[in-house]
């Protein structure tokens, strides 16, 4: 075996340093915990949590376990991330395309938006929306109804709740429609490849998505009614809306600022992606007789998406991680519920911080693995 100090030396030193640092830390942690009489373990997760959370998607109160509290926090994090991602994508794509518009005013307006929101710290924006902007909203008793059914007040947004009858029939009808669409798409593609005939897939898809659920209303006995929020007096000056769905102002402020902030980055990704497709591609496509719509759909977008999607996913990940700023305005997300309240109550610093970090870490690593796989799949196969 060719055993060279030159090859082994640096590696050995690095590993030794890492092991020493970690060993030092664990040793100290053990000594410290012994001194303070803290025992290490994850058994506390099944204990009764005895604290309440203001807003939760699943049933939860103080009698549930710490693990349940963790789930509540995680679900709240996911909720605000999903809302933020949807809004940020819509806004980001619009602004990104607007930045490429030949229209001078639209172009400058979009650029102004990007430069403005990108250069202000996210935390400041969250504070601004929560403490300054949303505080200017009316009190529940003074609120003007929006479209007659929902109310935007200082205590949150109150919207009607859907009350379904036979919801599962409706759900199955949508699933059936989606399956049918997938089958039809595959069939249409095959048909085009073999005999070159195009089928109006989009029209059929929209039709299916509308008709099947409609049928479920007519035949399947599905009924939908709305529960409209009603003003209720709690005390002489304190009012609240009851019934319907209420979105707390923390959620609104957080989702709003997250999407406004992230949309600027997504807009830049979209712009870079579309600009990244060579001009020659557009001209070549036009010269073989494709219509402008076809050029966009068949030539530009497939290539632009290849550039757009990886950085955009990164932005989604950033948004999810940034949603942990919720702790600053007391939106009960994972960090606030678990790394905040639960940590204060149990004092299990190492366990709780490690679980929290591990949750975020597994989220981002799984997404980046997915991204790498996707990148490899769509990468241009060069010979």
């Amino acid at each position, binding site marked *: 075996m060719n055993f060279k100090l030159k090859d082994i030396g640096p590696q050995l030193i*690095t590993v030794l340093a890492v092991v020493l640092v970690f060993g030092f830390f664990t040793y100290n942690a053990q*000594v410290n915990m012994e001194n303070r009489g803290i025992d290490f373990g994850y058994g506390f997760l099944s204990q009764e949590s005895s604290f309440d959370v203001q807003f939760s998607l699943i049933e939860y109160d103080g009698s549930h376990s710490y693990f349940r509290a963790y789930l509540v926090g995680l679900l709240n994090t996911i909720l605000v991330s999903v809302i933020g991602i949807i809004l940020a994508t819509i806004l980001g794509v619009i602004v990104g395309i607007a930045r490429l518009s030949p229209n001078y005013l639209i172009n400058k307006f979009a650029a102004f938006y990007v430069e403005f929101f990108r*250069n202000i710290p996210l935390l400041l924006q969250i504070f601004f929306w929560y*403490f300054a902007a949303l505080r200017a909203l009316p009190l529940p008793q003074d609120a003007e109804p929006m479209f007659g059914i929902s109310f935007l007040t200082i205590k949150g947004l109150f919207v009607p709740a859907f009350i379904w009858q036979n919801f599962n029939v409706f759900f199955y009808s949508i699933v059936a429609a989606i399956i049918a669409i997938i089958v039809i798409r595959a069939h249409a593609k095959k048909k085009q490849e073999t005999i070159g005939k195009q089928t109006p897939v989009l029209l059929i898809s929209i039709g299916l998505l509308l008709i099947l659920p409609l049928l479920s209303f007519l035949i399947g006995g599905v009924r939908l009614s709305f529960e409209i929020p009603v003003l209720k007096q709690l005390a002489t000056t304190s009012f609240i809306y009851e019934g319907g769905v209420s979105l707390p102002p923390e959620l609104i402020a957080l989702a709003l600022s997250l999407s406004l902030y992230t949309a600027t980055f997504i807009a830049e990704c979209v712009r870079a992606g579309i600009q990244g497709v060579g001009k020659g591609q557009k001209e070549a496509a036009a010269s073989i007789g494709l219509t402008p719509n076809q050029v966009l759909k068949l030539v530009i977008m497939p290539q632009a998406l290849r550039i757009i999607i990886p950085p955009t996913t990164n932005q989604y990940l950033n948004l999810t991680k940034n949603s942990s700023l919720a702790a600053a305005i007391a939106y009960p997300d994972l960090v606030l519920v678990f790394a905040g309240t639960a940590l204060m109550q149990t004092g299990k610093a190492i366990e709780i911080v490690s679980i929290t970090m591990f949750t975020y870490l597994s989220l981002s690593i799984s997404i980046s693995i997915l991204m790498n796989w996707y990148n490899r799949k769509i990468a241009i196969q060069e010979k």
Partner: protein
Amino acid sequence: MSKINFLKPDKSNLYTFLYLGSFLFFISVLDVLLNSFFNINLTGFLPNFFSFLLPLILGFIGLYFIRIELSGIKQLDLLNKHINTNNFNAVLSLLIIFIILKSIPPVLSWFFVDASFAGDSKDVCTGSGACWTYIKVWMRRFMYGMYPNGEQWRINLSFIALALLGSVGYFATDRFKKYLTLYYVVIYPFIAFLFIFFFISGGPVFFDFSYGIIAAILSIIIGFFIPSKFKFYYFLIVPFGLYVLLKYFIFYEELIELGKLDGLNWVETGAWGGLSLTFIISFFCLIFCFPIGMAFALGRRSGFPLIRYISIGFIEFWRGVPLITVLFMSAVMFPMFLPADFFIDKLVRCIIAISLFEAAYVAEVIRGGLQALPRGQYEAAKSLGMGYWRMHIFVILPQALKLVIPGIANTFLALVKDTPLIFVVGLLEIVGMLNLAKTNPEWLGFAMEGYVFAAIIFWIICYAMSKYSYNLEEKYKTER
């Protein structure tokens, strides 16, 4: 004069269309303008809904009339090309013009016309506009945090001195240019640290860290006489050994006595805050995260598998977690990992945490630059007989760093924007101070002014940084 077809504006009746269209457009803009600036509603006699939409409709028709291709009038062609290409664009342009016109008066009146500037108590803020008096009264707190008023000249002086020392690079002659890197990477941060420690913090003249400084200086001096073959291992072992030697065996008693010679009044880091703290944290994190990030970027591309895996693990770990949990860790978990009698200041822990966090992002950016270099560069350097370090320092890194200036600048921008998060460990920089001032019972209800003020400051800093990075990029752009 040929027949006029109003559905199809053409060149033959150019001036008819031009006058009619501009008149309609002008009317629509005038209506909105009067409405928003002077609160006069020209179309008040119409039903509400129609009066609201009328400017848009008039403006649209006007723009439709003047959309004549190749009219021969330069300005008109320019206008058509830029804001009036088709119906859809015309509507959007009109909407944007109207939004700008509509939003100028309220913004102006909030910022200036109705705002109160004078006085130094809340009583003057009676208008509907902003209360800048609040900012004026709290200015010192927003800038310096809880730092004692009488001592604030120390911060000012240090910052001015550091700014002057930092601008040395602009005045350096060619003879000294080659030392600039050394100056900025090693000497300048060290001077900055001394300033912060002795001046802003008012630390004792001799303190625990002094041994480290002496050890470092001594070992560098001795290092000149060590053959280059052993230099790496020498610098790995000797400084630390010297430190232990100095601290525990040689100077201990004497230095303890010297340590009692205090400098300026001690101001503990808990009292620091405001914008100056933002600058201090950003400055040190910026300085630390760059070399750490570079080291891990090289480590990730290293040929040694163990070093590579450790680097990958480090980078992916820090990139995968939110900064707020890292700060949580530095606040509640990190003290558990240290010996019980070993205390690290909150601010220092923060700086370490943020530096490590941002270093992972810097590492990925630099790795991008390293990967983008053509293989020929590596091969050419190797064929000249360069070793690993020589090749990287003189050939690879200068080119790679040039490539990634925008990425690095973005990371630094993110760093500056992340500093407000230190509220997690109880340090209050400008945003934290705003939140504190907001809850002061005498000054309730001025949250908006505070946030707008901080937003303007941050915006200026970040925008200036991004423009500067753009200039750097242009300056260092080399033809390939």
